[in-house]
Each structure stands twice: as C-alpha cells, then as structure tokens.
C-alpha cells in the first residue's frame, strides 16, 4: 500500500486542481475514444429495500446504488482516499463547523433534469427526516456529519426501540443546510467534524432527482440517479441490469456498456457459474471454495485476496467485575495465536490484527497493539497468573448464524493451552439475539464484535466503538483522556486529527477493552472474459476497471 501516503493530502481545502492530479494516477487509460461495449455479469444479491440510497445499507442494493449515483466525493479504488467527484470544492470554516460545498456545473440526472444544490439539500433533509425511516439516517446526526438541526427532525426512540415521529412534518428540513445558489450550498454543523468531506462520499449523501419527491412509486420502479450507469430493469431474485449513461459528466468513463447483477440462491451456484465463465465477477468466495484453497487452484491468477476495511474482535463486558483488570485482558489477548486460528478457521484469508484500525485506513500504524497482540504463551501465562487468573470457564459468545463457530472454538483452544483455563464457545442462535443481550449489558463473558467501515477514516473505527456511551460501545469502555483526544481531533486538520487518533489508539493498547483479532480480507475471483478488475478497500469491484477482453 505504498499509495497510502497520498490519501488525504488535499487537506482542509479541496480543489478541483488536486482532483485532476489524483485522477491522472487512476487506472483508466483514457480510452474514451473507444466506445464501451458488451456486458459484464457480476455476482449480486437481492436488495433488501427499493434502490433508494438512504434506505440501503447492505451490499446487494449498495453495489448497484454505487453505480447509479455519484456523490460529492468518490473514494480512490486503490487507497480509499476521498477524491472530488460531483463537488468542485468542499471547504471548511475555521474549526470545521461550517462547510461550503460548490458543485460542478452541467451535471444531469438520467431523466435529463439538472443536478443542483437543491437536489443535495432536499435529499439530505429527506434522509434525516424521521418520517422517511431511513436506515442510514444516523449519518446525518452526531455519529456522522452532525448537521445542525438534526435532532429536531430525527425523532426519538421509545423504550421498545420504535422510532417515534410525533410532531415532525414529513418535509421538515435541517436548519444547518442552506442553498446559496444553483451550484453552492452550505452545511452548518452542531459540532466540529474534520472528516466531513470524507463522510459525504457514503451513498446516503447522494443527490436525488425531483421525481423522487413528487412520484415515489415511479422512482422506485425505475430509480434515477446521476451516476455513470442508469437503471434498465430488475427481476426479483434473478437480476438487475444497468447500462452506461451516455451524458455522464464525471471524469472517469465506463469501459463496458452493460452490467448485469446476477442473483443466485447460493454462493456455491455462483462459483460454479464463474468456473463456466457464465459469471464474470464474484466478490465473496463461498466457504466450500475456500476450503483447501480450492479457489486458488481452480482460478489461479484470476483470484485475489485483498485486505478490506473490516475489523474483527472480541469484547470484554467491562461491567463484569472479573474483567475489570487491564493486565488480565492483555494476558488473554496475548494467549491467542492469531496466525494459527486464521489458518485453521479461515484458510489464511484474514490478516492478524496488530491494532484497532485496519491497514487500508489512512493513519494505520503497524504494531499499534504492541506485544499484547503477539502470541506468547509463556508470557501470557505469567501475566495471567500475576493478574489473579480467572475462576471458572471463560466463554466467548457468538451468533451461530454467521459461521463463527470454527474460529471461536480455535481461539478457545489457543487460550486454554496457553493459560490453562477452561474456555468454551457460547452460541446464540441468531445475530439479533446476541445483539439484544449485548446492548442490554447482559453479557457475562467475552463476546465477538466486528466493524465494517462506513467511510475510510480512523474516526470511523474509534469514535462509534470506544467513546464513552457511543452507539456501538458494547463493552462499556470509558476513558476521559480518550474522549478528549477524539473531541480535539474533530476540530483539527486531517493530519493533526490522525496524530490525535493514533494517540487515542495507544490508550486502547494500555486498557485493552477490546481484543483485536484480525482484519477482513476480500476473496474475489473473475472469469476469463474480462481484464483483471480492481477491487476497492470496501470490497467492491471498481466499475471503471470492468472491461471485456479483446
């Protein structure tokens, strides 16, 4: 990842000039003269919801939406660094609380209507509004870009976790968003957010055409965006077809005319189709293909194993007294032979974690976790005994519906052999049941946790997980020094912020509230029909790299 250094180099002021530079480094070989042709078939899955960006947070719909809509910024397919896309510039005020966004002129939606500042402001207000019931609503609030006036439209959750929208008009907007002219709008934030320009690349921040607000059923039947591809047709549980949008104003050009997202009942069926060259791209290998490295043997150099922004861990319920001891937690972490567990349970398709932020993220420090994440049975045993040991059986809770049994059992074997303490996996039938007990602080033992990045920033791997009372702070970790560092970072320039985040990571290494296990990796393969595609750190295939052979 030598390109990592370049990442957020555009800093506090984003300019179109900076973008041009980065765009040149891209992989598209400027063959715009060549008309794109042909069809590429990609492994898809049935979207859970209609193809509306704010309603979609799973990959089935997300992959399609990514191509239908272009946001203010794009993420570099190699480094995940944000690059200006629809925005000409995104500039913060002093202290990162007021952001001014200028759009590139001349962009049109697929139905011919222009993309204006209004398209963005209305779309964002719609996403934040309680009545929309958007899964991605929180991106506009304190866990995301924190736009001023979010609380007034977001609604509240009652005791049963149902959203209560009483007294909120469906068209109520956030007072922080203001349209200046057709191509300019401003976003005033409730608190400083240094990574505003990074977050707004997420699909929830896409502009929406007028038809979405006036005729919702028509939009859902034929979604209209501003992206490089436009919607053609969708058959439930069969396929979604998109075709190149000829009037696309972006600098990147499609190299293939149609993309067909083929939906399969099982990943195994998709894999068989890939071997037969009936399917061109798979971004998740089925377990049966991974076993014994079958996929590598069968696909050869048409396969790739690439790190992505996923962090897997086990978390201590710090509200349980026995675990309220950092030395004990470090000893348990040191007792886990990550390499062996990965080899046993994942066919080496994970990278052992050496910190709390994956390598694909700008600011990643190798070895941030230090010796506590390096397997050393003897030393771990020594620390464990010095820390008072543990009476009874250590349990690692996991959800049985997610294929976690193998690694949990293997991890337990490693802990048991090193520390001479009983260790046992504890299965919850479903993810929902596990999360219920976790969020209600009912856990009695260690439990599995994982985090997939929403946007490429260290902040996304720290703030929601370890800040006091943060949304996904499952173990109940609280360290005022950590909170202060994060708060400071929000008001700093990206470079300064990274330094603060790295300091905060050191606090995690001292306290070990969560044991880093491994970083996720993409296991992808492609057919003989297409040129070698590029896969992004989000685990998706980069559309600009799709090209038929010959």
């Amino acid at each position, binding site marked *: 990842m030598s390109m990592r250094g370049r990442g957020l180099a555009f800093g506090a002021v984003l300019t179109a000039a900076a973008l041009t530079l980065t765009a040149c480094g891209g992989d598209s070989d400027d063959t715009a003269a060549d008309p794109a042709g042909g069809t590429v078939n990609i492994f898809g899955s049935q979207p859970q919801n209609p193809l509306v960006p704010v309603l979609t947070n799973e990959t089935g719909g997300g992959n399609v939406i990514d191509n239908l809509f272009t946001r203010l910024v794009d993420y570099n397919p190699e480094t995940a660094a944000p690059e200006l896309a629809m925005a000409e510039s995104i500039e913060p005020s002093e202290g990162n609380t007021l952001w001014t966004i200028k759009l590139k002129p001349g962009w049109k939606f697929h139905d011919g209507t222009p993309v204006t500042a209004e398209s963005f402001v209305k779309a964002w207000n719609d996403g934040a509004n309680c009545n929309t019931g958007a899964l991605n609503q929180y991106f506009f609030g304190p866990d995301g870009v924190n736009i001023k006036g979010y609380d007034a439209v977001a609604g509240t959750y009652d005791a049963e976790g149902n959203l209560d929208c009483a007294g909120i008009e469906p068209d109520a907007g956030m007072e922080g968003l203001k349209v200046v002219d057709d191509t300019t709008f401003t976003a005033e934030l409730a608190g400083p957010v240094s990574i505003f320009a990074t977050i707004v690349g997420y699909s929830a921040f896409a502009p929406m055409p007028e038809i979405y607000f006036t005729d919702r059923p028509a939009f859902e039947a034929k979604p209209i965006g501003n992206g490089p591809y436009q919607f053609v047709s969708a058959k439930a549980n069969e396929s979604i077809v998109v075709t190149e949008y000829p009037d696309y104003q972006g600098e990147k050009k499609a190299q293939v005319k149609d993309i067909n997202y083929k939906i399969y009942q099982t990943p195994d069926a998709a894999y068989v189709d890939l071997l037969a060259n009936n399917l061109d791209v798979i971004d998740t290998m089925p*377990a*049966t293909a991974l*076993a*014994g490295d*079958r996929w590598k043997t069968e696909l050869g150099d048409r396969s790739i194993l690439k790190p992505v922004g996923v962090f897997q861990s086990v978390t201590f319920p710090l509200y349980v007294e026995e675990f309220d001891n950092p030395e004990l937690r470090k000893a348990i972490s040191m007792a886990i*032979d990550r390499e*062996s*567990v990965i*080899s*046993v*349970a994942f066919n080496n398709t994970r990278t052992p974690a050496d910190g709390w932020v994956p390598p694909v993220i700008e600011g990643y420090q190798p070895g941030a976790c230090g010796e506590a994440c390096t397997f050393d049975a003897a030393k771990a045993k020594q620390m464990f005994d010095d820390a008072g040991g543990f009476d*009874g*059986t250590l*349990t690692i809770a996991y959800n*049985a519906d997610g294929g976690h049994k*193998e690694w949990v*059992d*293997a991890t337990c*074997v*490693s802990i*048991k*052999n090193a520390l001479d303490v009983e260790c*046992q*996996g*504890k*299965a919850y*039938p479903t993810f929902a049941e596990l999360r219920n007990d976790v969020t209600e602080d009912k856990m009695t033992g260690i439990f599995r946790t994982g985090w997939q990045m929403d946007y490429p920033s260290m902040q996304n791997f720290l703030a929601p997980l370890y800040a006091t009372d943060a949304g996904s702070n499952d173990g109940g970790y609280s360290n005022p020094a950590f909170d202060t560092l994060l708060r400071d970072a929000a008001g700093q320039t990206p470079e300064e912020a990274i330094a603060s985040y790295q300091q905060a990571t050191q606090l995690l290494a001292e306290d070990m509230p969560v044991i880093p296990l491994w970083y996720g990796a993409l296991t992808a393969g492609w057919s003989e029909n297409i040129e070698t595609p590029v896969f992004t750190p989000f685990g998706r295939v980069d559309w600009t790299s799709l090209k038929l052979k010959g």
Partner: protein
Amino acid sequence: MSNPISASLEATDQQGALGTEGTGKPRSLGRDAWEDLRRRPLFLVSAVLITIFMLMAIVPQLFTRKDPRECDLLRSRQPPSSEAWFGYDSLGCDVYANTIYGARSSIAVGLITTVLVALIGSSLGTMAGFFGGRTDSILSRTADIFFGIPFLLGALLVLITFPSEPDTPAWQTIMKVVVALTVLGWPTFLRLMRSSVIQVRSSDFVMAARSLGAPPRRLIRKHVVPNSLSPVIAVATISLGGYIVAEAALSFLGIGLQPPVISWGSQISEAVPWLRVAPHMLFFPAIFLSFCVLSFMMLGDAVKDALDPKLR
C-alpha cells in the same frame, strides 16, 4: 438339495428338545429364545460388537490414553499417522480419542431413551389393552396426538425451548435429548403393547385365572404382561439403534448434544465443511456410528426372530 438339510436341522432340534425334557425342567419362552439365540451367528457377532461398544462407553481409558480435549492448533487436520491413528480434527484434537469418548454419550442416549420409551409405552399400552373402553380411548387418542407430531419438528421444539449452555452439566445436556426423543417415541410402544395385550387378554389361560378369581393386578403381572412382552423387547432393541441415529441427527443440526459433551453426531457435523480437505475427520466417527447402530439392529433382528415361535 434343500430337503436333507432342513430334515437334519429338524432332527437336531428334536434331539435338543428331548434332551431338556429329560432333565424334567419346563422351558419358558425366554429360555427357548435364549437357546435359539446362542446358535445364531448374527447374534454372536452383534453381541461381541455391542460388548466392545459398551466397554468403550463405560471405560474409554481402556482404548486410549489420550485426552480427547487435549488439542493443538498446529496439528490441525493432519491425516492419520502412527502418532494419531485416525488423524487430527480442525482444532488439532485426536480423532481416535474423540471417537472412543463419543461412544458414551451416543450409547447413553440410545439406552436411556429406549428404557424410558419402553417403560412408559408398554405400561400405558397394557392399561389400554387390558381395561379397554374409556381408558383405551383416552390413552390411544393421546398417543395419536403425539404420533402426529413430526419427529424432527417435535425434537427441535423441545431442544430449542430448553437450550444448553456451555456450563450445563453433561448429564443435563444428555437428558434433554433423551426427553425430546422419549416424548415423541412412547406412542409406538403403546400401540405395540396394546395390541399384544388384547391378543393375550382373551386367551384361555387368562380366562381361567380370571374365573378362579384372580384380581386384575395379579392377572396383569402374572399372566398378561409376561406373555405379551416379546414384541416390545424385539422392537426396543431395534429402535435403540434408531435413537442413536436420531441423536446423531440432532447433534449434526447443532441442537442435540452440545460441546463440551463429545458425540459422534457433533463430530460428524464439524467435519462436513472439510470433507474435501480432511475426509478422515468425517470417516472415523461415521464408521463407529454405523457399526454401533448396525450391531444393535442385528441384535434386535435376532431377538425378534428368536422370540417369534412361528419362525422357529
């Protein structure tokens, strides 16, 4: 060809019968059956196998000195070798030791379930058959209700309602599976016993005892039950194997016996994803399961034939 052989067999049979008569002891049905059984190769083979499996279940230490829970990730999925005859599983535990230790829970489930099912089923069946009328209707209809519940669905329901935690004692985990199987298994034996009792109830010797003034309890104990038990015994022996398979199926689905209890079903379930890479993980527990079930089935078959006078 066939005539001389059958003739000679009959001859020996008669001789045997004459010999016992000579000692003056009357021969019961049970003794007859035993005399018949010990000459059947099917019985001898299954008896030897079952003895081995029972030994395995009671004193696994006789067969292996290794601890089945001593695992090492570095040995993960190594094939059979001189060090580990059956190789190692995913977690690097010895497959041989695990297979040996797996016998206990599998056979325990089979045995306890069979005993419970036969006890409950046949005592209720005796009542239904002997008293008839309203008692029969109530018991038989109740049995029909349980009979109507699909086996797997019912067992799933029971086991999911009472899930096992990692710190649940092993005997509790086993008993949960036993209860699930018993709840759904007893109606078979009720039906069997009932029809058998109805047959015996109207036979002459029962009539005679009744006319001599024997109370119902004595009738049941001394005359009806001993003479109607043989089909129950035969079917129970056969279904023992069936219950072992049912346990394996439930454990395979991840709801039967749970770790830390070792069982063949859960071993097989864990081995399936690695079938292509490490077939030995699946092969050995599966072979043991098959042989154990087979030997109980063979025993049941032999007992059934021996107890049936028509086949003698």
